[in-house]
């Protein structure tokens, strides 16, 4: 007879929604366990935390200036409308507290405009401190620096794009050889570790180190630039020290440009959030396998089962939070017959005819983008008839439907707000 691994609150999913739920529950003193099928993919994320970048279904409308203002105009079915602007603020306050001075943006309700790797500008609510000097609204002249062999960031293209976007600063670009060439296709992590360790540069004769040599390579291109942007590889362990040293040597502000996966900024965010959950007493189990089944009695879930190479490992809790993501994350499943939530079979509204699930154009207004479970005001997934599927199951993040996060740039904010709310409610009930 198996005995279930027990906790007050069990959170399923290791992304921002799951972490927010687990953190908020753990911070109220509940005994919390977070399980994720595989290693979290948070280190693939940009590290930016957006709330609402564009209004929903906005054809050609500009970015949202104040996301908190805009929440009032959202349809009732939008997750922000369900939890309310106050909860969005509370959730962000929790994350601000956890991230401390490593993140900026809490001083204002307005969106910041962050320069990204392609030279586009992204409206976002919170951003790493290392990104702060690169905001597009700033009128100090910018030098963007790329590295010869680092693919994924072309300083010239990015500088031209920023210029074309009409930012109020002059931009210039330089591409330099990184002081130590370890291999032609080194990953961002290699650059970051070299800057962390700061070894001497071979063949330089003296005891010149990597950070100093990098500054020397960039120095001739600085000219009138008051701030210098590097691809986000400035250290995993010592980002602040690396930035400060480069700033001192170059006499200009230094910032990082968020990059695609694998992302150093995403990795730093992941490390901080997981460490915070650990500090708050949350138990963390990742990589054990997917949750594949459950027991329920009288409308309440009594246990769930993790599949570990064919064995079914039972986990039990008073309250459960489903934070498994959308179609891309595996939290919503679809096949030719329909769209489902695969663990608990929660109702996911969708047109019967699957040719109505998508539009012809790649960037069209696809119905599938909003597929997800429907929740009540307590974030409990509801059946087609409008009743809670289970009284002790709540949903958080992209598994919830009714919003198109890639289009409106709201993925982190919805995850944080619904995660925070689901975690608190679960802790209160559990």
């Amino acid at each position, binding site marked *: 007879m198996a005995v279930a691994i027990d906790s007050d609150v069990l959170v399923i999913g290791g992304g921002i929604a799951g972490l927010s739920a687990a953190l908020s529950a753990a911070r109220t003193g509940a005994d919390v366990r977070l399980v994720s099928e595989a290693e979290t993919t948070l280190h693939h994320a940009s590290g930016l935390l957006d709330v609402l970048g564009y209004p929903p279904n906005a054809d050609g409308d500009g970015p949202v200036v104040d996301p908190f203002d805009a929440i009032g105009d959202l349809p009732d079915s939008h997750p922000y409308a369900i939890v309310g602007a106050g909860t969005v603020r509370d959730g962000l306050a929790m994350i601000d507290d956890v991230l401390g001075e490593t993140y900026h943006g809490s001083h204002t309700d307005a969106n910041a405009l962050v320069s990204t790797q392609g030279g586009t500008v992204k409206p976002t609510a919170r951003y790493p401190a290392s990104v702060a000097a690169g905001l597009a609204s700033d009128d100090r002249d910018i030098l963007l620096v790329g590295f010869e062999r680092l693919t994924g960031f072309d300083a010239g293209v990015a500088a031209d794009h920023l210029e074309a976007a009409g930012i109020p600063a002059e931009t210039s670009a330089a591409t330099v050889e990184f002081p130590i060439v370890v291999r032609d296709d080194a990953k961002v992590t290699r650059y970051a570790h070299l800057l962390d360790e700061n070894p001497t540069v071979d063949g330089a004769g003296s005891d010149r180190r990597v950070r100093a040599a990098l500054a020397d390579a960039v120095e001739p291109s600085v000219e009138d630039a008051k701030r210098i942007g590097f691809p986000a590889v400035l250290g995993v362990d010592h980002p602040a020290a690396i930035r400060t040293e480069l700033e001192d040597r170059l006499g200009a502000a230094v910032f990082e440009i968020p990059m695609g996966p694998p992302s150093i900024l995403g990795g730093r965010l992941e490390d901080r959030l997981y460490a915070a959950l650990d500090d708050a007493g949350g138990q963390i189990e990742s990589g054990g396998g997917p949750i594949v089944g459950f027991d329920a009695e009288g409308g309440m879930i009594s246990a769930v089962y993790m599949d*570990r190479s064919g064995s079914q490992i039972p986990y039990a809790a008073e309250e459960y939070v489903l934070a498994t993501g959308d179609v891309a994350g595996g939290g919503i499943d679809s096949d030719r017959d329909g769209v489902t939530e695969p663990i608990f079979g929660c109702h996911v509204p969708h047109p019967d005819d699957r040719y109505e699930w998508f539009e012809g154009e790649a960037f069209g207004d696809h119905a599938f983008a909003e597929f997800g479970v429907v929740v009540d005001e307590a974030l409990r997934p509801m059946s087609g008839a409008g009743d809670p599927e289970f009284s002790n199951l709540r949903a958080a993040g992209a598994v919830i439907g009714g919003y198109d996060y890639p289009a409106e740039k709201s993925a982190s904010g919805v995850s944080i707000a619904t995660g925070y709310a689901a975690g608190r409610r679960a802790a209160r009930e559990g």
Partner: protein
Amino acid sequence: MSDTQRGDTTTDRAETDADVESDEEGYEPRDVFDSTTEMDLRAGADNCTKVGTCDAECPVAEVNDDFPGPQFQGPEQWRLSQKGEVEIDDSITECSNCLQCDSGCPSGVPFSEMHNTARAKYVLEDQPLSIKKIRNRILANYRTSAWLASKLPRTANFFMNNGAVRWLMEKTMKIPSEREFPEFATQTFREWWAQRGGEAASKERAAKARAQRGEEDVDPADKRVAYFHGCYSNYNTTQVAKAMVRVYESLGYEITVPKQKCSGTPMFANGRVDDARRHAKVNVEHLGNAIEDGYDVICTCSSCSLALRQEYPDLFDLEGIDELAAHTYDAMEYLRIHEDLEAELAGAEAEEFPDVAYHAPCHSRNQGLGRQAVELFEDVEGVTVTDVGDSCSGISGTYGWKSEKYETSMEIGEEMFEHMEETDAEHGMTECPTCSMQMEHGTGYEISHPMQLLETVLT
């Protein structure tokens, strides 16, 4: 949710297609590729979106710049190999089989399966004969050497760490003289087990423990485990195996120790899938018999449990292999889901046990078990178990036992050594026997197994 995770995608798709053919819409999707071949890794290769997390997480690529990395070794090389006449690149032997790429991949690319397949093809078909190749086979078949050494353990211990012998081994076999050979036990675990009365004695002890615990009503059939000790706790660290026996019996479990061979871990890592298959056949048969008799299989070595659970069904098509995977557990994991360990450990003390710096082996993390030891001992008084993070120890079984890999192995381990030294503890703890060797080699600490701490607490 996980149907794209392993090689079974093609069969899923084929079934769906069949359903749809009878559909009113008359849509007839066709399987363009031959999806029925065993070991078809196309689905896995197609899952790769080239985000490069595998390369960024690979501890070998981090320190060895000639190593192309898992993205090449796995999906890219598989695609190349479909053109025929393409030899497997010899860099496949640089992979240490730590499986960090497997855990890190967001798209479920079956790296372990791909690497093992490519490595086996390289070693069995392409690799020219050399001293290193012979040495690798000897290392892969550690069980044979250990069996031999166990006949004269004292002599073996003397010679294996004798300077002149080691100099000769370095010169002839390319076995790094820096490493200390593990000591062979003067009595193997199996000898101890037999002398102690084997299964019959275990039944008695378990019955007595159940009586003491007030579990007279518990059906003995519900408390039966078959122990897969593997080579290392049989020939070398027998204290780990004995600790497991005492812990389980004290909780009322009857133990059986079936006939068994090597799990195959060192063989997979050296491309000797042929040897591994021979050993797997014996293991699947005898452990399978125990499962039929109502036993679950438990392992104390994380690489053994990974082999039985994941690599066996990935690589071999043997009768009962999926049953074995589904009935195999890590020894600690099994207790967590069959006993109220939290209650057993509540208020427990282990004053005499030293504080430890705990390293979760890659192969434990790969099974989702990387944090259970830390969690479990959190509330035990008198001992602090500090997690030293998710770096790889670098030894990866036989990998660090090759002269040409020694430096790489130690460079990978550097992060773990530093983290171990940063903790207040002066002892180490891990589940994996070779991680344990590396931890001791790099820090000089004495290394224990979580079962030994559990033994201190419970018995």
